């Protein structure tokens, strides 16, 4: 091997050499796409760039399916429990003995599941974009950014080292930045991409400090050994991190909460969510990929990855569940009032992520109590499918109508039949209607919450009702409501290339719920048989139906009911419509406080005080010499007087004073 890359082929042979390389190829193929399209795309590939990238990703998706099959059904299990396998790892940067950033691949149920989700959704988006983005000026660039994102996301989910996760975490952030800012000449897109990056960056600060704390006490950055050291209550590492405290809170909790802040930023949880709605400025397929299905769930993934450690700290878990439930409810309320269809979807994403988060928060580590964990992962999986579907459907609508606003839509079911059906399936799925995917996963979440914390359960139940309301509000507003009046030429749906991903995803959204998820993904790797309680699911389904019928009543036909209702809760409606003025608050904090109270004084201080001191040194030198040059008057007799006075003075000095 290369002398630089001392790749430790841990068990790569036990997987079979081909499988090892296959594993490596999964992230490397999108990277290849990024590099080749980024460097040569504009010149050589042009319109074939999309096909090229799609083929690479198809290969990658195929390989990850292959790996998933192998892992779940062939070699992943050891004595009934799924193992964490690290087939590839090499030292990337050694800080000190024991503390190093190792790049590697960690296979365990969640990473393999994420592998499949990421590559599959990404492939769908690639295919969809072939038609959707056709004719764009920077078509190859678009695909190269998609490649970069997919690579980073894959690196993130397969990370074997917390710092590796951080590295790819930043990379997905930047690819999201690049893709949101894809329409670079729109000022709103530029503002949105900056906002997204800066807010997640702010959250990453917490993540970074959390990593620093964990690494200091854990003495390692490697996930496996970190988890091992910090979860056994007897280890010295655990004892020190649990006993070390700052402001009365243990270092462990601090570290986990800080890490969670990082996750909350990326997953757009309250109150760090403000970037997500604005991020909808990006191309719609990108929103489907990054801001619905994959990147935004990175926070959930992070908490799940460190879940054994989280489960050691009650407080940290409590924070996770509280933030999760607040986000879920908060976003759902806002989603009911928004009129931009992508923004509704964005808030719905935030709400669903809130579901996953509090589900993790109410979970325990082992056995039955780990239901929350499984449920969160299950919901992550199903949500990826139906939310991507929703976004792609929305994209298809926007593609047809060239607008994001609900008021421009209505009655589109005749023009977009396939979109209509798939969108309906997705809406049913997200509303938790049996037998669609969302029903099963949401059911498990609610069950986990019910067992753990009644308050959370009731709020979650209410939120799930709201969910079906706003989703069907969306559905009816787009496809029913008023009749669509076509202006000029009407082109149909995007054709097969655009419809195929919708169909595939709707199949997934319809059927994914039947996967016995507890068999594969559990907190402790052991099998978890989730019992299905019929009586338990009555309440959520009933509430969901209520939501749907309310939406139908209000939006199926054009009428003034929505306005009346909005009018009757005037102030609250306004509050929700303006997203509870959080954006304004952020603007106030950044513009007023950061810029005006810190930035400006700092710049002023530098210009006037520090620089002024330097200039003052120079000026005082000039001033003094200006004064001193008067002595050099050219008048001989003056010199003589000074001289004489000097002589007399020195004489007196030497004779009488310094004898």
């Amino acid at each position, binding site marked *: 091997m290369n002398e630089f890359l001392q790749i430790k082929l841990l068990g790569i042979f036990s997987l079979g050499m081909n499988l090892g390389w296959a594993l490596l190829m999964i992230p490397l193929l999108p990277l290849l796409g990024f590099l080749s399209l980024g460097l040569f795309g504009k010149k050589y590939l042009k319109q074939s760039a999309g096909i090229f990238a799609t083929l690479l990703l198809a290969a990658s998706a195929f390989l990850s399916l292959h790996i998933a099959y192998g892992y779940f059904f062939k070699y992943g299990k050891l004595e009934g429990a799924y193992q964490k396998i690290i087939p590839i790892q090499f030292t990337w940067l050694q800080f000190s003995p024991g503390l190093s950033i190792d790049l590697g691949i960690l296979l365990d149920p969640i990473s393999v599941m994420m592998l499949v989700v990421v590559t599959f959704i990404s492939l769908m988006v690639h295919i969809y974009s072939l038609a959707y983005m056709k004719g764009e000026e920077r078509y190859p660039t678009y695909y190269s950014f998609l490649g970069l994102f997919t690579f980073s996301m894959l690196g993130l989910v397969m990370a074997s080292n917390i710092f590796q996760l951080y590295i790819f975490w930043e990379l997905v952030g930047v690819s999201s930045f690049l893709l949101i800012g894809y329409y670079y000449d729109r000022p709103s897109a530029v503002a949105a991409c900056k906002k997204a990056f800066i807010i997640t960056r702010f959250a990453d600060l917490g993540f970074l400090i959390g990593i620093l704390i964990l690494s200091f006490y854990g003495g390692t950055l490697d996930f496996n050994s970190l988890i091992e050291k910090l979860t056994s209550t007897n280890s010295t590492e655990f004892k020190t991190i649990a006993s070390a405290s700052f402001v009365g809170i243990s270092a462990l909790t601090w570290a986990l909460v800080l890490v969670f802040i990082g996750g909350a930023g990326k997953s757009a949880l309250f109150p760090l969510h403000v970037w997500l709605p604005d991020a909808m400025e990006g191309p719609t397929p990108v929103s489907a990929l990054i801001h619905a299905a994959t990147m935004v769930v990175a926070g959930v993934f992070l908490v799940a990855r460190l879940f054994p450690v989280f489960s050691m700290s009650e407080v940290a878990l409590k924070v996770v569940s509280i933030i999760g439930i607040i986000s879920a409810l908060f976003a759902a309320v806002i989603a009911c009032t928004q009129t931009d269809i992508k923004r509704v979807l964005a808030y719905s994403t935030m709400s669903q992520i809130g579901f996953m988060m509090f589900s993790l928060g109410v979970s325990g580590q082992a056995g039955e109590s780990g239901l929350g964990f499984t449920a969160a992962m299950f919901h992550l999986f199903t949500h990826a499918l139906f939310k991507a579907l929703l976004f792609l459907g929305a994209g298809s609508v926007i593609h047809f109508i060239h607008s994001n606003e609900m008021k421009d839509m209505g009655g589109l079911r005749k023009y977009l039949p396939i979109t209509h059906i798939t969108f309906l399936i997705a809406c049913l799925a997200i509303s938790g209607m049996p037998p669609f995917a969302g029903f099963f996963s949401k059911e498990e979440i609610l069950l986990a919450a019910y067992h753990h914390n009644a308050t959370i359960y009731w709020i979650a139940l209410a939120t799930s009702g709201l969910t079906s309301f706003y989703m069907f509000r969306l559905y009816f507003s787009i496809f029913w409501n008023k009749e669509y009046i076509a202006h000029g030429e009407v082109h149909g749906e995007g054709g097969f290339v655009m419809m195929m991903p919708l169909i595939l995803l709707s199949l997934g959204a319809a059927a994914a719920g039947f996967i016995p998820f507890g068999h594969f993904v559990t907190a402790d790797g052991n099998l978890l048989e989730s019992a299905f309680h019929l009586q338990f699911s009555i309440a959520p389904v009933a509430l969901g139906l209520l939501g749907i019928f309310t939406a139908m009543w209000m939006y199926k036909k054009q009428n003034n009911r929505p306005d009346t209702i909005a009018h009757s809760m005037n102030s609250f409606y306004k509050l929700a419509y303006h997203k509870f003025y959080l954006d304004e608050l952020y603007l106030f904090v950044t513009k007023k406080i950061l810029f005006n109270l810190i930035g400006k004084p700092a710049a002023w201080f530098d210009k006037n005080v520090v620089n002024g001191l330097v200039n003052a040194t120079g000026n005082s030198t000039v001033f003094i010499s200006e004064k001193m040059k008067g002595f050099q008057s050219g008048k001989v*007799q003056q010199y003589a*007087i000074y001289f*004489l*006075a000097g*002589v*007399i003075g020195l*004489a*007196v000095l030497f*004779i009488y004073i310094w004898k």
Partner: protein
Amino acid sequence: MSGSTIIFYLLSILTLVSGILSVTTRKIFRAAIFLLFSLIGIAGLYFWMQYEFIAAVQITVYVGGITVLIIFSIFLTQQAGELLPKQNKNRVLFALLAAFCGFALTLLQIIQHSFNKTLESPILPTMENIGNQMLGIDENGFSLPFEVVSILLLAAMIGCIVIALRSKPTTV
């Protein structure tokens, strides 16, 4: 009170009074003449101290040479009969103060210090002794300073000529 004492005092008075007049009179030619008298008085003092050779040199060089040189330069540069410009009051006051302080300080030192004459046998400043030592190269000889002074004089002469030469108009 011997004759010698009276002569000393007379000479001192002549020297100092004509010195003072020389630096205060506002007629430049008179200043030169007072200077002449002062120098003569000094020569008298040398005679009084029985240093005849140096007294003679004083008269020839100073009285005969330098004063004449000065008078010539007065003729060359000055309109005759014109009063010298007055110095401003402050300057005079400060000069007086400085001169007086310096004078008082020096005098105080002179009075407080007692000079002791050596006990070794004196050498008389006769022409013979002076001549031998001036050109002697033994340890009492002064031939090196003598030569240095001669070179200095030469340099001064050349310098005078160079400085006083009317610079030619540079026409190339």
